[in-house]
């Protein structure tokens, strides 16, 4: 009996070995051991799960309530130390909870310019509900705050429902500054990681926040990582035994299902349950570890941060849109992008030379595929000296850009924050002379390794460095640039190839003597900000009257990046799993105020086959930022290189994107004014449907469209969930599809993925497949009127010049469309606090498509403006693809888009 057993074991080992070989290209990719885990990080390991919250007590006599602000002394009795606790009620729907040492200790706080201003002074008075020896209860609007003294705990409820508890699990901690003692444990004053020693001159100064979301089963947020939308517990099997980490890092070949933190960090978490959404934002830029566990019906979080202060915003608006609107008051809303930047971007590492640029640009016209922007990666430079050109391959960059621009398109070059240490390179010599570089712990210019070799890093945390950097982008300074050239900031985590975890040493020194430890997660946003300021400055010179909106893509990000520009999810891979995870990654960014984002279509590493490429484009057209990109060593993959059938499918997909742009741009305007996401999880739109709370395999584009990606090879069908309480229409055929709580199987072909219109919405479109957004400027609109059960629908259309800041003074058009009582009306959209739109465009609605009109024996006719009458005709839902004519279409009403009008639908 032994022999067969042994044989089985041998077979098993062989199988294991074989599977290792087969999967090695995936397994070997992410170098787990190149990055720290909690246990290898002193501040995390000495706090994770350590119950020391009972050490902290409120000193009752210290309590002062001054209208909207409560202050108290928080005492750490065993340590004989006192801290200052501040609780403030703000008018914009949040309560701010701060803990700091006494003034003068000088712990780091995130500078005000990372967030927006204005909200600080808008406060809402606390009403004292009750006070006892061990408790004070306050209320403000719908929020009720209960502060218990011994030990210190805090409980917040919203509209009578428990929303958040602090220190209820006894995990709160705040390490005060101290003097060095011989008895101090290892790791307090120095720690070493893979030959890098962090000198930690200020010693331990970590904090642990103990947050419980009572009755909440789902929490979301704290990007960036490739994982599910609803955050899984971190006490599970590997790799989910590690806390989520927020520390901006350049992670080579990241995995598609892993808690590890990637290029950007937004310390915002949202919890949702039936009837209540609550959000928190810990305004802190140091390294963080976040444990999530789900005891009983609750979700409990331990949030450990290396340095800085406790500065926690608790958003109590009650719903996801309200939470995001309040967060936007603090961190800002999405900058209204250049319209061109919502078109398709074609990128590759690298388009080799001017002839290559010409050929790729020409390829799009030859295949009648729209695109707006052609990108040049690092090889376009002279030896990775950014803002220069390799003249052997790009001898005439200005005519090249002008040629591309002559067809209404733009170009982008990459500009990274590492500066080649070369005195003959003007950027380096000027910056060195002016002292613009980050310093090492010896106060010399930090010298790290990146693409150009030895490099120094601009200290963009300094306002002076940022304004100097901004000046580098004027047309006279950036040689070979034109007003059609926009910028891509990569490697701004910052990526330092020979630094610890491929970034900068924590004891490096920034402007104002700040340690890199304190502001690491801000480096990216500050660099991004400075570059965008540069393009703004250039725009103000080129067009003094209205300027030019900057377009700068960044990889690293933080709270507030939405005000600067888009981000993308970095170096993903040409794998189905990466296509799949792109959806929860982007949904998470939308729920944390950074909706303008996208994943590289096709996957950066590796070679996608025609099917993966097709499916990725079919999903990618819904990404707010839509770019195809590929690694240096991959095979060429411009959309027409996969055979005529695939070219046709990709053409259809990209043309579909351009048709949706009026709707997408209108969604961006809502993001710009109110902080609303572009891509939304199903629960955001259906917050009472518990079965949707963890769904991340389909998503909504705005409130009107539902999309089900196909993210598996060879799929001939997919399971689709269509939420109850809405009517759904197939967006290709117009056929009404009944809602299904349980997902149901839908047949798919390679020609498309399931997309639905949600009844109750009016969606503006442009159905002429132009070569670029600029070429669409004079095209008429189509309105898709998808009726709900009451036979009603509403929607809006926002338009402006798509380029300048003229919209800020009212040069925009914003219309509301409603269909009610069989009347379609167009009225001006009014947004409180904004100048009224005054722009008149000589454009018309050429087509109105009605979905869901009840059958009428002799059909319908439209009475336009109470005067002439036109019968509704049978026609296809979309003009972009040959489809059965089973929608009811109002043909060529030529309704002026800038004016009020009414169209009445009556039975013929």
């Amino acid at each position, binding site marked *: 009996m032994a022999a067969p057993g042994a044989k089985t074991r041998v077979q098993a080992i062989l199988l294991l070995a074989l599977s290792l070989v087969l999967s090695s290209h995936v397994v070997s990719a992410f170098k787990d051991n190149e990055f720290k885990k909690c246990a290898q990080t002193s501040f995390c390991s000495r706090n994770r799960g350590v119950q020391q919250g009972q050490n902290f007590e409120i000193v009752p006599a210290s309590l002062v309530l001054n209208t909207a602000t409560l202050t108290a002394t928080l005492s750490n009795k065993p340590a004989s130390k006192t801290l200052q606790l501040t609780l403030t009620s703000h008018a914009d729907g949040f309560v701010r909870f701060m803990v700091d040492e006494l003034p003068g200790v000088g712990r780091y706080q995130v500078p005000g310019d990372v967030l927006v201003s204005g909200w600080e002074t808008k406060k809402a008075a606390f009403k004292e509900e009750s006070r006892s020896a061990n408790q004070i209860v306050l209320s403000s609007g719908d929020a009720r705050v209960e502060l218990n003294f011994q030990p210190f705990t805090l409980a917040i409820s919203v509209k009578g429902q428990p929303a958040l508890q602090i220190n209820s699990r006894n995990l709160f901690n705040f390490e005060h500054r101290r003097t060095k003692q011989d008895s101090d444990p290892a790791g307090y004053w120095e720690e070493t990681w893979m030959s890098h020693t962090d000198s930690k001159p200020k010693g331990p100064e970590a904090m642990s926040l103990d947050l419980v979301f009572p009755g909440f089963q789902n929490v979301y947020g704290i990007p960036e990582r490739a994982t599910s939308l609803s955050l899984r517990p971190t006490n599970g099997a590997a790799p989910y035994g590690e806390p989520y980490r927020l520390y901006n890092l350049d992670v080579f070949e990241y995995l598609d299902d892993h808690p590890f933190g990637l290029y950007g960090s937004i310390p915002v978490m949202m919890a949702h349950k039936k009837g209540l959404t609550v959000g928190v934002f810990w305004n802190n830029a140091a390294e963080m570890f976040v444990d999530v566990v789900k005891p009983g019906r609750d979700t409990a979080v331990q949030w450990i941060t290396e340095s800085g202060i406790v500065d926690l915003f608790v958003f109590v608006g009650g719903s996801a849109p309200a939470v995001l609107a309040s967060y936007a008051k603090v961190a800002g809303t999405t900058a209204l992008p250049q319209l061109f930047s919502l078109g398709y971007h074609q990128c590759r590492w690298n388009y080799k030379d001017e002839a290559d640029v010409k050929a790729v640009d020409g390829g799009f016209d030859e295949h009648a595929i729209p695109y707006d922007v052609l990108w040049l990666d690092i090889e376009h430079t002279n030896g990775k000296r950014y803002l220069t050109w390799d003249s052997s391959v790009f001898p005439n960059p200005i005519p090249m850009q002008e040629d591309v621009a002559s067809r209404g398109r733009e170009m982008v070059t990459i500009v990274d924050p590492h500066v080649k240490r070369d005195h003959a390179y003007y950027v380096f010599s000027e910056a060195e002379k002016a002292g613009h570089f980050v310093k090492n712990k010896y106060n010399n210019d930090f010298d790290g390794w*990146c693409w150009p070799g030895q490099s120094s890093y601009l200290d963009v945390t300094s306002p002076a460095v940022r304004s100097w950097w901004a000046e580098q982008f004027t047309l006279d300074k950036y040689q070979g640039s034109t007003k059609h050239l926009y910028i891509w900031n990569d490697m701004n985590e910052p990526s330092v190839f*020979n630094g610890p975890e491929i970034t900068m040493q924590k004891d490096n020194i920034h402007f104002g003597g700040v340690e890199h430890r304190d502001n690491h997660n801000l480096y990216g946003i500050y660099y991004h900000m400075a570059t965008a300021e540069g393009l703004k400055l250039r725009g103000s010179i080129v067009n003094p009257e209205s300027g030019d909106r900057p377009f700068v893509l960044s990889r690293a990000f933080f709270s507030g990046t939405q005000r600067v520009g888009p981000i993308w999810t970095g170096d993903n891979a040409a794998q189905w799993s990466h296509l799949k995870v792109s959806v929860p990654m982007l949904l998470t960014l939308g729920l944390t105020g950074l909706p303008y984002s996208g994943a590289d279509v096709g996957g950066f590493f590796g070679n996608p086959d025609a099917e993966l490429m097709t499916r990725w484009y079919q999903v990618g057209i819904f990404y707010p930022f839509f770019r195809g990109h590929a690694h240096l*060593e991959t095979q*060429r993959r411009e959309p027409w290189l996969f055979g005529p059938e695939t070219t046709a499918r990709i053409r259809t997909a990209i043309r579909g994107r351009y048709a949706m742009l009026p709707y997408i741009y209108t969604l961006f305007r809502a993001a710009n004014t109110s902080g609303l996401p572009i891509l939304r999880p199903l629960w955001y739109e259906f917050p009472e449907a518990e079965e949707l709370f963890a769904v991340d395999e389909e998503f909504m584009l705005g409130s009107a469209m539902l999309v089900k990606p196909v993210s598996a090879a060879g799929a001939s069908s997919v399971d689709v969930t269509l939420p109850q309480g809405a009517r759904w229409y197939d967006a290709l055929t117009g056929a009404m599809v009944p809602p299904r709580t349980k997902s149901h199987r839908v047949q798919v072909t390679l020609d498309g993925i399931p997309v639905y219109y949600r009844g109750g919405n009016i969606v503006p479109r442009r159905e002429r*497949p132009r*070569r670029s957004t600029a070429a669409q400027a004079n095209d008429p609109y189509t309105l898709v009127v998808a009726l709900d059960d009451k036979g009603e629908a509403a929607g809006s259309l926002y338009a402006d010049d798509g380029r300048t800041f003229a919209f800020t003074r009212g040069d925009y058009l914003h219309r509301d469309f409603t269909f009610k009582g069989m009347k379609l009306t167009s009225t001006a959209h009014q947004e409180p606090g904004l100048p009224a739109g005054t722009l008149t465009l000589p454009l018309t609605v*050429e087509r109105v498509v009605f979905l869901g009109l009840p059958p009428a024996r002799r059909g319908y006719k439209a009475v336009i403006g109470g005067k002439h009458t036109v019968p509704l005709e049978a026609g296809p839902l979309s003009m972009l693809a040959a489809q059965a004519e089973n929608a009811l279409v109002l043909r*060529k009403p030529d309704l002026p888009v800038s004016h009020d009008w009414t169209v009445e639908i009556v039975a013929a």
Partner: protein
Amino acid sequence: MGALFALVLVGLALAQGHAATIRGMNPDLASHYTGAGGTFACITGGKKIPFERVNDDYCDCADGSDEPGTSACHNGVFYCRNLGHEPRLLASPFVDDGICDCCDGADEAKGKCGNRCLEAGAVHREALKAKIAQYEQALFTKAGYITKAANFKQELQLKAGTIAEDIAKQTEVVAKAKAELDVLEKAESDRIAAEEAKRAADAQAAEAALQAQADAAEAAKAAAEKAAADAAANPELATGADAHQERKLGEEAKPEHEETPEERGRRIASQWTHDPEAAGVPASNVEGEEGEDGEHHHGDYAQDQHHDGEEWHDDDHLDDPLSTDTTGTPLGEARNRAHQAQHDLDRLKKDEENIALFLRGNLNFGPDDMFLAFHDSCFTSHQTRWTYEACFFHKATQREGHQAPVTVGRWYGFSEDYKVAHFTGGDECWNVGPRSFSVQMSCGMENRMSDGEEPATCRYQAKLTTPALCTEAELDGLKEELHKLEEFEKEVREKIAKDEL
């Protein structure tokens, strides 16, 4: 009868009137746009619409045929007449989009674009003239290949009949010259030996002492080797402390190298690029490498193409001047004679080889042996990471940086039309089999390899331009095209002069 006839006439006139004014209509399809009966039938699909819906800026036909002159249909086709240049079919999304596509400007509103057709035509003609000149040059080069190949073969033919005999004769000559030389060299060496003998005796004592030392060292080395062999036979002995000891010794010999910051930077950079030099290469180096693209020769045949008049198959070393003795002594002269004889024999043997290869071998050098010029030629193409090298009639390799090249194929032959050169049976590729390489060839001014891709795993390809693939027929076609264009331009200019446009 007369009334009916008149009606038909009116109908025809109307139809022509319609056709003449339908914007963007392809004249080949004019019969569809007559407006007969006041309706238009979509060209495919059979749907009928009122004729006034043609070009009304709303798409009614699924095939886009009702809107040849607007952008309303996603799949419409706009016809540019482009008088003075050449007509063009334009996708209708490009109509009225603010960008001039037709050189006559007809795709945009009047006055927006201006007519660039004559200029476009002129540019086109100039380009054509340049192409013709290049073609002529390339054909001249090609003719040179063919003539040289013929001359070369002819020479070989002349030699072929007597080569065996010539070699036999020359072998005798060599033997004789060597014998003479041997006699003289023997005498010389005897004389030197006598002189040396004395000196050797003096040195012997010292040498003996040295030898004793060397023997001792040898004995010690043998002992060490035996110990190592024992350790290998008994692995237990090599584990634990001993192995540790060994490693330590090794480290001492070559102290363990702590990664420098630069090395770490390069290592991390190479994760992305697989190129240890990717980060931090000065731009000038990169430019230097770019310049190496092109053709070189590892053998003699092609090299000599560049030295007209010289014999093609001389091996350089055969004429090595360093091997000539210039002392003028009898021994020196004998040496020169022997050397010359050997040289002549080597040449004959080379001729014999060439006769076997080029006259009697089965290598196909193409029509008129036009590819004979490629024999022993190698072409290289530098890509970002890889350098491809194709040595015709031999093999092709792919090399990364300074690593050893991988053989991606051995010479297999040309495709039937001589437009592809195949190399097969290269180094094994895991799960795929032997690598293979193909070179897509086309007519060009010079021999130049470019690109270099791996469209499927371990299947490589590159492109090569060569004069060998240029043909007279194509040149004639180009000349004909130019002639037509010139005639056409004359006509258009005359029309313009007569104000007919």
